[in-house]
């Protein structure tokens, strides 16, 4: 039971990370998390 919970937690963490990457890429981010990176603009 404990192992199943841990697997679920790991899948949740991984899923959240992947969904964040996908959403950032959809916004046009060249580098994940970068506040200056978006569609047509990237000027740190």
């Amino acid at each position: 039971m404990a192992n199943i919970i841990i697997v679920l937690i790991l899948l949740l963490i991984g899923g959240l990370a992947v969904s964040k990457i996908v959403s950032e890429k959809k916004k046009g981010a060249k580098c994940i998390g970068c506040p200056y990176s978006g569609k047509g603009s990237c000027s740190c």
Partner: protein
Amino acid sequence: MKVALTGNPNSGKTTLFNAITGKIEHVGNWAGVTVDKKEGDIKKSLNKSSLSMTAVDLPGAYSMSPFTSEENITRDFVKNEKPDVLINIVDSTNLNRSLFFTTQLLELGIPVVVALNKTDMSRKKKTVLDVARLSKALNCPVVETVSTKSSQNGLEELILKVVEVRGSAQSVPYISEKVDFSQAQSVQSSDRRRYDFVKELVGKVETRKIKSNQQTRQDAVDRVVANKWLGIPVFMLVMWSVFSISQTHVGPLFADILVGWIDGFYVLVESLLGGDVSPVLKALLLDGIIGGVGAVVGFLPLIMVLFFMLALLEDCGYMARVALVMDRFFKKVGLSGKSIIPMVIGTGCAIPGVMATRTIKNERQRRTTAMLTPFMPCGAKLPVIALFAGIFFNDAAWVGTSMYFLAIGIIILGALIVVRITGEKNARSYFILELPEYRFPSFKRAAVSTMSRAKAFIIKAGTIILLCNAAVQIMQTFNWQLQVVAEGAENTSILASISSPFAFVLIPLGFGAWQLAAAAITGFIAKENIVGTLAVVFSITNFIDTEELALISGSADVAGIMGLTTVAALSYLVFNLFTPPCFAAIGAMNSEMGDKKWLWAGIGFQFGMGYVASFLTYQIGSLFSTGSFGQGFIPGLVLVSTLVGYVVYLMKKGDSKTSLKLSVSAKGV
């Protein structure tokens, strides 16, 4: 309703754009920071009308006849997209230059509102401006603004005027005669007449106490800071101070606290898991995710302090002086004077640095700059520098400083090689860099910039780095038959089998262990991964408190855990900093170079340069520290000699191209 922000470079357009939209686009106290247009809705607190207003921040331009690609963006937007109103941001400390562009904008038929910006600086110089007279002379509203101030900055009045002039016809204060653009003389004489008009106008509305030809305190500072000979040692001292404060003194104080919290969280999760959980899952969660991500995040305070200090340096106007000091070196090796701008931007992140190369007109110079910009240590490389400086060099500030200057040296050498290979060693370029006035840096702006970068760092750590560390942990745990590898048999894991062939090539560089090769490989996804992977493969969660680390491992010293000598550690750092950047930056190189041959040559060049620099660091360092060359000297020497020989061959080939060009031009063909 669309409102375009136009004006000369460094007139404060992006600062004003951020102030009216609430956005956090990057600003810098120097010309050429914005190279592309940006859009944002004007804040409701400033926009009292019922209209929805979008502001468009455009790159700086000196005139409507474009000389650079960013001026093209501005001209094309204003002419083709027909915004409803133009806000022309005018630097009130330099009216003579700024109003030339204003008179051109007024001819377009779009209503214009002039934002007379930086009026606080004009007042400080006791310059008196007759705003009402200027407004009357230009036939458009003129509003005094100080976009760096959070209140009483004139922005509400500015937006009010924008709403008022919407839809109105713009009358022209200066009528230029017909210009034949195919005739340089016709263009020049037209520009001269326009300048005369502006000069006369400025004479009527401006009363200066300090004449522009008078020497000021700023000029006195520049005589030292931007001096041909003193500029470099001053820059070295500045960078050493920045690293000393961020990596040795202030940064570690906060890092110790943060690492304490991460360690506490690790212990808490470990105790919650208990003894029933599978060791594989336990290791994945604790060592792969919490340990790996925690090791990277532990460096956040050091990086934040460093970014904060670099932001202050940029804001006060110092970085523009650095650009000036470096300019003469870059010109000598065939780069554009403008090449320094992408490289300074590249100290934050290589991607915008590479993208900033688009302001360089000459194709070879642009591609060479895009190839060399990633050599500058970017923000992602800072945790790697901090890790090695901390573990192997007792947090010495010279490590980070020397990496910056080594990067500059490699860039100059690289440019020299490329210019010879391409057969353009006689090419010379000219670049006029406008020096902004020194000002007291804004702590608020530096804090906002630092916080947004810190947020980006955390997001990156929680996404890409987390997934990579988890993958590394899984690949380290299993072999190709998907069986858990036994303790002590880690060499049979998937990760070891993938990394070992690479590790073999790295023996002459002093780090032939598969773990170190694996970290270098994951570094191509994101450079911070090097720290995360080292944490996972060596099961280290705390790279900050190295005394504690040595105690836990039972090893006599930290170097023993990673199997590195001090010289090898420096070599490993050099290799990771000067081999190709992350894939995202390579993608930016691809789009800016626009040529696959250049891209692959660039990546090959970066690999070669990193390998040779690392080889020299290790072998020469070993010779001095132990009296003999290090491991794998002979095979390494053969490989390095082959690389160098090939580059020399290409350079000779390029020289013959140059001679051919010269003889053709001498014959007047």
